[in-house]
């Protein structure tokens, strides 16, 4: 895969926004008395925050399996999830912090607070993969219509077809098709 990055492959985006601080900023300030409390009645300075959403590489060690001997309260076999971030995800997460701080600094921000507490897999609720799409039934589960190669009357209409975590173009292209 071609990439401009040295430390990792694939990419990430940011989501964020700006807002004015409220009275709760007083919890982290020194001060007391009527003047202090009155000062907190007015909106505080603007804060800007951006957080990264990074791609995860497809990895055969990240998989789910059905536990036939462990049923839930309705008799349905439970799912065992085996999933952990690899070095590429951690390297990307480190870069997200550096670039976020640099962008904020370049736009004139002050008191930059960088954070990196990488979320556990599943927290972003953007799960994809496990039934990849492809032309060759030997190497994929679903064909170009999200139809199971081996069971022609089964269509999967979610993100399980993804071979790469690239929903922004894969979902629309599937819809148009």
């Amino acid at each position: 895969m071609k990439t401009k990055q040295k430390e990792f492959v694939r990419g990430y985006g940011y989501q964020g926004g700006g807002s004015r601080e409220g009275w709760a900023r007083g919890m982290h300030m020194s001060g007391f008395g009527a003047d202090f409390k009155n000062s907190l009645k007015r909106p505080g300075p603007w804060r800007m925050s951006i957080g990264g959403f990074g791609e995860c590489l497809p990895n055969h060690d990240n998989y789910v399996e059905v536990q036939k001997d462990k049923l839930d309260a309705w008799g349905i076999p439970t799912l065992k999830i085996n999933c952990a971030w690899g070095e590429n995800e951690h390297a990307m997460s480190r870069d997200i912090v550096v670039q976020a701080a640099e962008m904020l600094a370049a736009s004139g921000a002050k008191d930059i607070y960088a954070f990196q507490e990488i979320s556990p897999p599943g927290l972003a609720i953007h799960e994809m993969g496990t039934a990849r799409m492809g032309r060759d039934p030997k190497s994929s589960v679903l064909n170009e219509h999200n139809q199971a190669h081996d069971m022609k009357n089964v269509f999967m209409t979610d993100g399980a077809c993804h071979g790469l975590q690239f929903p922004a173009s894969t979902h629309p292209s599937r819809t148009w098709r």
Partner: protein
Amino acid sequence: MEFKGRIFFHQCVDAGVHAHPAEFRDAGIPERPGEQQRGIGPQLMDHHMGAGASATMPGHEDKMPFGNRPNGIYIRASAM
């Protein structure tokens, strides 16, 4: 689990959806050499988050938003 019907559309949410490909593998699809390579079950993915930065933006203190904006901002690389 057993399903009977002419056509099945599968759409679930969260990790539950991944149980069904695994169920198909266990239930109906014949075992073949290199089953793992075909991609049923493995290659579970999710976006990772929790990294970023926040800061104070000086100025603009005469500006105040009214109501709730329905969205924030997105910064996307072309490869995302």
